């Protein structure tokens, strides 16, 4: 359940009060992240139960990607407390790595390896020694089986994104951190990857998106970050109006 700097109130806060400790997938309390003089996130607090979906909204530079990278253990918090899947970060980052699937802005593919070599490399890092069956199945599902032996450097941005989705879910992670997963994808490709990264029982998802109208139409929890990385809203999607989100995007509301 997401809560902002101040208690978000309403359904979100009530649910959080009754959620058992073990059912919390992500707990963030007073998170700050600075890059030199620039504050990317300030005093962000949220709780997300296992199996729920959180959508993170906000204008460019609001700290959405920074938040996702902190949760993925790729950035250390400058202050505050972060716990992911029961592990305190950054101290216990080693325990949570491998249980997270992270889809960032970059596909994280080696350009001089083929598609299948890239996925085999990731599979070996995750200890999936005999992963060819799983890799073949995923490539089939995203419509890229015929490109398996293609060098990653020869793929279009959309194709690379489809392979990046395969890499993200290859090890069947408990927690998906998705930073604009629809980037570069045409509607057909989006439809192909959606079953792989969409909601599923037992899987917790955090999705960064700019498409706030579509995001707010879903059932889930929303976190709206304003300019400067402060929390403008945290709570159920239905509690956030598109007009308010738009006002935050345009900088009229913080």
């Amino acid at each position, binding site marked *: 359940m997401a809560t902002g700097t101040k208690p978000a109130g309403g359904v979100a806060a009530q649910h959080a009060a009754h959620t058992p400790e073990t059912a919390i997938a992500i707990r963030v309390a007073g998170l700050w992240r600075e890059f030199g003089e620039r504050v990317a996130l300030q005093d962000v607090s949220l709780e997300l139960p296992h199996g729920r979906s959180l959508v993170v909204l906000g204008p460019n530079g609001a700290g959405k990607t920074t938040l996702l990278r902190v949760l*993925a*253990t*790729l*950035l*250390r918090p400058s202050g505050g407390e972060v716990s992911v899947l029961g592990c305190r970060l*950054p101290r216990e980052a*080693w325990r949570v*790595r*491998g*249980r*997270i699937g*992270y889809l*960032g802005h*970059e*596909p*994280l*593919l*080696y*350009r*001089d*390896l083929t598609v299948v*070599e890239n996925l085999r*490399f*990731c599979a*070996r*890092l*995750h*200890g999936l*020694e005999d992963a060819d069956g799983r890799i073949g199945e995923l490539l089939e599902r995203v419509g890229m089986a015929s490109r398996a032996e293609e060098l990653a450097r020869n793929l279009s941005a959309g194709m690379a994104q489809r392979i990046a989705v395969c*890499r993200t879910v290859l090890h069947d992670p408990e927690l998906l951190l998705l930073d604009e997963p629809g980037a570069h994808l045409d509607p057909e490709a989006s439809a192909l990857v959606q079953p792989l990264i969409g909601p599923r029982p037992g899987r917790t998802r955090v999705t960064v998106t700019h498409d706030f109208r579509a995001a707010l139409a879903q059932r889930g929890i929303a976190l709206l970050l304003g300019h400067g990385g402060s929390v403008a809203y945290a709570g159920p999607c239905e509690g956030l109006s598109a007009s308010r989100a738009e006002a935050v995007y345009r900088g009229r509301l913080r």
Partner: protein
Amino acid sequence: MRAFTAILAKDLRVELRTLQSVPGMVLFAVTTFVLFRFGLDRTSLEGSLAAGVLLATVLFAAILAVNRLFVAERDQGGLDAIRLAPVDPTAMFAAKVTALAVYLVVLEAITVPIFAVFFLDEWTALAPLALVLLLADLGLAATGALVSSLATGSRARDLIGPLLLLPLLVPVMIAAAGAADPLLAAGGPEYDRVATWLAVLGLYDVMFLLVGYGVFEFVLED
């Protein structure tokens, strides 16, 4: 161990496919030998001069590979991909050290015979010289991998890498030259003091491998 083999196999596969490091190193070394041949106007070298020419050439050729060692990790997001996996970060250090050492061994397998053709009257020193070069390679690789990982986040990495690396490699140069000098002596190899210098080289290798093992995880952090 699986992460070590996966990263090493990936690096060697990419090098075999792209030939981005080793051919450049070989070309650099051979060109440098040719320049020394004409610059010194000598058809034969021995002792400390021979050791200096050979080791300085290997050292500068190594910098080409050191600068490229983390390019794919930095530019293509490999660092994030590896950090997201449940693996010991020092496996990456070990894999990079091994990959760099392999490049250096290949470089020397090709260029030391060329050096011998250009400058040596007799080749009996080459076998014991191989041990000196092997220990020097390990020190170069351990220090090079550590410095390359440190410099990789910097915009001026091509400058910072060599600036950090060269002073750190002075002890390797001193010890390797000290061991190679008597081996390349006029009239055939001599073995006085060689064991002492080899011990110094070995100590340097162990020290920088341990330093790399200890700090690499923190170097990888943001």
